């Protein structure tokens, strides 16, 4: 456990001592702010129109503001998480520091978990930025907090899946750029995998629906904690980390 923490700390520190953390968090904050302003403006206009026409019930902050807002966070995940994971293994292999890790009394599992938790910690900081905006909504409105909590659990799990996959892809190459591009392409593919469903038979449709890691987020956003989704996400993460371990191990044998 001590080793995992040591490596996670090292990872987190290296994100912050290189420009990566600042660029990723900066871009994240800017783009998220853009989403926030626009969705908020849309929401305000809608509710004003609603107010003008008769005494209909007020608009729901959770349903019509926070939900679309947090759905857009997945877009940021798609674009920015490859930047977080692309260097994890590729850079260690390129600079030779992987030799230090693999010849230290640390198991492959500890190295992988350390790297995973380090990236997760950075992702948590990124999500923390979005909480500021949500906090503003609490100041000026009365949203329900429970669906927000489940939505954030969903976002953490989704990010975990992306990070596990990103680690795997980074472990396959020495080149950060290659790792970043492939990771982005794979994330995008997982995103649009359901498109084929509407043109093909029910079996393919069901299969792609199952593979899609984005669609499951809807339930979390609605405030539903479905164990099947939880298990899906957790096993996705577990499988990704398992494959990363295998990839590092075969690398050893191939030399």
């Amino acid at each position, binding site marked *: 456990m001590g080793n995992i923490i040591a490596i996670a700390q090292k990872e987190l520190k*290296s994100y912050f001592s290189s420009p990566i953390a600042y660029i990723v968090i900066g871009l994240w904050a800017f783009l998220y702010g853009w989403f926030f302003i626009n969705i908020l403006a849309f929401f305000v206009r809608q509710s004003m129109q609603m107010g003008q026409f008769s005494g209909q019930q007020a608009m729901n902050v959770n349903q019509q503001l926070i939900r679309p807002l947090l759905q857009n966070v997945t877009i940021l995940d798609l674009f920015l998480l490859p930047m977080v994971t692309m260097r994890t293994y590729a850079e260690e292999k390129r600079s030779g520091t992987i030799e230090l890790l693999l010849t230290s009394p640390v198991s492959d599992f500890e190295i992988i978990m350390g790297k995973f938790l380090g990236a997760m910690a950075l992702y948590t900081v990124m999500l923390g930025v979005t909480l500021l905006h949500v906090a503003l909504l609490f100041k000026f409105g009365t949203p329900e907090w429970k669906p927000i909590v489940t939505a954030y659990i969903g976002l953490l799990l989704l990010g975990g899946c992306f990070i596990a996959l990103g680690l795997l892809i980074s472990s396959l190459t020495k080149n950060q750029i290659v790792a970043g591009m492939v990771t982005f392409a794979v994330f995008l593919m997982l995103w649009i995998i359901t498109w084929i469903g509407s043109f093909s038979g029910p079996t393919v449709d069901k299969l792609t629906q199952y593979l899609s890691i984005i669609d499951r987020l809807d339930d979390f956003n609605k405030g539903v904690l479905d164990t099947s989704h939880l298990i899906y996400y957790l096993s996705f993460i577990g499988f990704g980390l398992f494959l990363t371990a295998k990839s590092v191990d075969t690398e050893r044998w191939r030399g």
Partner: protein
Amino acid sequence: MIEVQHLTKRYGPITAVDDVNFRVERGEILGFLGPNGAGKTTTMRILTGYMPATEGRAIVAGFDVFDQPIEAKRRTGYLPETPPLYPDMTVSEYLTFVAKIKRVPAADRRQRVGAVMERTRVSDMANRLCSKLSKGYRQRVGLAQALIHNPDVLILDEPTAGLDPKQIIETRRLIKELAGDHTIILSTHILPEVAQTCQRVVIINRGRVVAVDTPDALTARLRGSETMYVQVDAMGADATLAAMTLQRIPGVTRVVESDRRDLVVGYEVESDRGRDIRRDLSRVVVSSGWGLLELRPMRMSLEEIFLELTTEEAAAAAPVAEVPVGEPVNG
């Protein structure tokens, strides 16, 4: 302390290390000598648990590196060919991180980091980023990293590569100092380094061990006969005649003219092994009325031995008796 048995490593069809066997006793410094691509780094990587062997066993500090890798790694310090530094950490941050993953107890870390920085003379760079270090300092921080957990076994892949002559001397002295408490394997291209620092040498070529011995014994083994270099000013006398005069000295087997500048001629005089002809040689030169300018024993250098052992024909017949040098003048 280190035992390597029938170690073989194949990358697909290529055999990088082929049935290598050797032992290193506690406190010994073993030199690993071989041309590029001979399998030095591969062997070291197997010993440090970086990669598994295809066949054979390696036991480090009593633990099989394949069956009990964690235990073996706890007792091994490794300096790879390129020091594994994280560019965005300072030297002391880096060493503290290494201390953590090498399982130095939290209470001792600060003291250990200070001690190894002192020992490898990098204390003045403690707060410098690793990316800003010169090659010499990078190498020394690499060495500090290998020492941080006070390992029984040190494996150093070309520890003096890229250092300036002063640093090389310092590093060699440091390695020698370390030999008492640590068992050391070091690889190098630089042959005098082996002669100066190592008690035993393993010469490896194309993945095979071609010789294991002390540097002195290796030198002796390849030296079939004693050779003296003598430079004389023959004062106008015929050089061939001078060679014939030298040839008549008892014990001399062969005289070869090796260089000539105007009237100054240098000869290589071979004699029977174990027979000291220096006195006779100098007396003959002086009594012939020539000027004796230089007289010194010629030794086959490790370079020559190395070339001898790693050139294919010679490798087949390892204990070479005669090593002809230059052209014979008088048979």
